[in-house]
């Protein structure tokens, strides 16, 4: 094998691949867009790993979120404005004791909570993760004693425990017992408004005739009475006690108590998929139309360009609205429609490129030398338009993402998976603007903008590569 390998340098647009990379990264936009792109990919992958595969059904199951507060700002708000809102508390640190007497099992659960906020916990949930509880002939009964920081004590219950989740403060016994407590202690009657939970009033006192938070350590004694020898229906592993706060998690909650952090995370993969899929379809159609028109010329070119003009002129957004309404389109239908009406401008660019390449001398020589059209296409034309294809792929992503976010914001073309546009739609519907739920409207819009800007910056940074006139300075 002594035959010398024919050394042919691979060049696109007069640049070797390494020169292209160098050109791209020579500008600050190139570096920044690459960094942002990596962040985008990492977060999307993180989202795919963290979110369960059945996240769509989890998100749409209101029961899953019922322990969460609704319309709650993020938990870190307290570190900015001081201890105002009580946080969501899952009580793990409790003492647990079991006693049996005369066929009745007494389970005593004791814990302390430190209340130092202006707005108290809005509810107490007792969760028993054991289906056996629903079907017991005589359900277990719970009685609660609260020792307050001022030395007073409220005894609440007994309440039957016969469902998975017991909402403590809305039970009529509890409400009347709290009312009675305020009546005896402060001579105020009917402190709990009709229809409200009594839970917050456990953490209040009356000071100079006004309802004020009573800060300090509260001791809760929960006693479960289980009327059978089978005391294991309630045990350490299936018992959860949750104090519903007024703040939640990293990004707060919406009207249904959805953890918005998870909703925002879920937006990453779906937004990327929507943008990339639509850009991919656009570019595939554009390349086919552009190559056929530019390469064959004549009547084919003429008619394809008429078609292209036509598609460019279509009022895509109003049509997308009307079809989404009429056919109840999903987000994927909308993506496909959008792609089908958006390839015009890209096809024109590809065609112009091919026309330019086609008139070059080396193509003429190849034709004279007897090269077939396919050979010329494969060896001379395709390699040269690849960077343009990539460039068009990048430039078509933000438009698709922004349009889909807009149509989702109208409550149309939705998906099971929450998208940022849909989060904004619900925010607008449920009065985020008139009630100031900033955590519900700022992050989704910022993320839409972030993803779009990443692609726009990438396109800007690649402009000097595809447009040699900008290659200087």
């Amino acid at each position: 094998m002594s035959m010398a390998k024919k050394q042919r340098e691979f060049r696109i647009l007069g640049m070797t691949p390494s020169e292209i990379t160098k050109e791209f990264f020579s500008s600050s936009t190139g570096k920044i867009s690459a960094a942002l792109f990596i962040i985008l990919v990492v977060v999307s992958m993180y989202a795919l790993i963290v979110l369960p595969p059945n996240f769509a059904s989890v998100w749409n199951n209101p029961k899953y979120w019922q322990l969460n507060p609704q319309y709650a700002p993020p938990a870190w708000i307290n570190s900015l404005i001081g201890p105002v809102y009580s946080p969501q508390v899952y009580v793990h640190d409790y003492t647990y004791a079991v006693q049996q007497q005369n066929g009745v099992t007494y389970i005593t659960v004791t814990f302390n909570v430190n209340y130092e906020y202006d707005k108290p916990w809005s509810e107490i949930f007792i969760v028993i993760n054991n289906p056996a509880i629903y079907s017991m002939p005589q359900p277990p009964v719970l009685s609660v004693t609260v020792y307050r920081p001022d030395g007073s004590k409220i005894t609440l219950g007994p309440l039957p425990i016969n469902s998975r989740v017991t909402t403590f403060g809305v039970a009529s016994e509890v409400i009347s017992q709290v009312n009675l407590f305020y009546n005896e202690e402060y001579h105020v009657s009917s402190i709990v408004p009709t229809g409200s939970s009594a839970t917050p009033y456990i953490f209040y006192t009356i000071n100079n005739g006004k309802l004020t938070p009573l800060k300090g350590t509260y001791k809760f004694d929960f006693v479960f009475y289980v009327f059978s020898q089978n005391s294991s229906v309630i045990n350490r592993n299936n018992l959860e006690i949750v104090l519903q706060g007024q703040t939640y998690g990293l990004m707060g909650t919406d009207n249904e108590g959805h953890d918005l952090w998870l909703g925002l995370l879920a937006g990453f993969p779906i937004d990327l998929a929507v943008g990339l899929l639509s850009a991919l379809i656009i570019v595939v159609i554009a390349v086919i139309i552009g190559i056929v028109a530019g390469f064959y010329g004549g009547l084919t070119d003429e008619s394809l360009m008429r078609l292209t003009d036509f598609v460019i002129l279509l009022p895509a957004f109003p049509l997308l609205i009307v079809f989404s309404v009429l056919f109840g389109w999903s987000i994927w239908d909308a993506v496909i429609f959008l792609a089908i009406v958006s390839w015009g401008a890209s096809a024109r660019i590809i065609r112009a490129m091919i026309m330019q390449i086609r008139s070059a001398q080396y193509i003429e020589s190849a034709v004279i030398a007897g090269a077939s059209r396919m050979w010329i296409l494969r060896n001379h034309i395709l390699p040269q338009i690849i960077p343009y294809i990539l460039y068009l792929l990048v430039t078509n992503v933000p438009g698709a993402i922004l349009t889909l976010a807009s149509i989702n914001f109208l409550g149309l073309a939705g998906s099971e998976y929450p998208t940022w546009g849909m989060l904004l739609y619900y925010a607008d519907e449920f009065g985020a603007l008139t009630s100031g739920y900033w955590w519900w409207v700022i992050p989704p819009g910022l993320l839409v903008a972030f993803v779009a800007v990443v692609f726009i910056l990438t396109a800007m940074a690649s402009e000097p590569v595809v447009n040699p006139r900008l290659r200087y300075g």
Partner: protein
Amino acid sequence: MGLARTLAVRAATLVVLLFIVLFVISFALAGPASKILKDEIMMETKSIIMNLMLHGHYNSTQIQQLQTQIMTELESAYGLNKPPAIRTLYIMYNMIVFNWGYSYFPSEYGNVGGGKVVDIILSALPGTILLDTFGILLSAFIGIEIGLRSALKYGSKSDRAVMYYAALANGIPQWWLGIVMLLIFSFYLAQMHSPISFPTGGIISPKYYELWLTDPVKVFTIPQAVLDLLWHFTLPLITVLIINIGSWAYFARTVVLNISQEDFVTFAKIKGLPENHVVNRYILRPAAPSILTSIFITIPFIIFGGFLVTEMVFHWWGLGYVYNIAIVGSPTPDLPVVVALTYASTLLYIVIIFIMEIVYIMLDPRLRE
């Protein structure tokens, strides 16, 4: 002669486009979507019957008769008793002669014109024209100025700043910026009891609303009403400007950069011509038609894209907000309004495109020959 021919071809293309859009919508409405229409008719009949039962004394057989009578009347009014092909033509005909029917939920639109869809859409036009004209012209004017300056200082710090601003402005959804503006300058300012806070939306205060819907020209004769309108106009206009200035600036910058690399510019520089002479004569002049074309060509896309949704956010009485009411503001989608709006938008859109093309041809001497 060539000019007339070009324009005729263009006009023909646009009319064909309009017809195709009209056909597709009508076909969709007549065929696949007719089930929705049937459901709507059922609802409409039920509400009429409810009204009759509240205000008159009928027995159940009379009611039953009335219901079938109303149903068949409505079905024939919507042409549902005809085969799909006829129905499509029927809907197309009604669209073309501006017989757009009645809204299902006229009260959602303040009972404009007794719920006649044509009147609802006409009442929304002035708002759209006001916001779009000022928004686009002002942003184009400022944006192009910024773009030119930044291109002439290519690579400088200010040029880079303009570029990042443009990237942001292109990436931020205009309507979302509107939400943020409302949150800050309407909600939070009001909550802080600031002496100045902007309205939460709407085109004008409720006391002038009636007048605006019936006779918008008269609003401009009342100074207080004009001030009130401007007060409502401030936030939407600022939102639209922030977003659109960026796109114009970036666009103008690219055009000027491309031209300043042309050989004749380099030659003019080599010849030793004064800098501002080169800029004005050799760069800006050839750049102008290209920039103008793009303005004209993109206007319809801008109007029927981001501006529609921005109107919804600000409850700005325009086409976009009417869309919003018809889609999500009503108990069920208000089909006559949605469909007529799409047709009206397409019509308006091609009219604008045609006017822009005439202006463009008049501006570009190469096309005039």
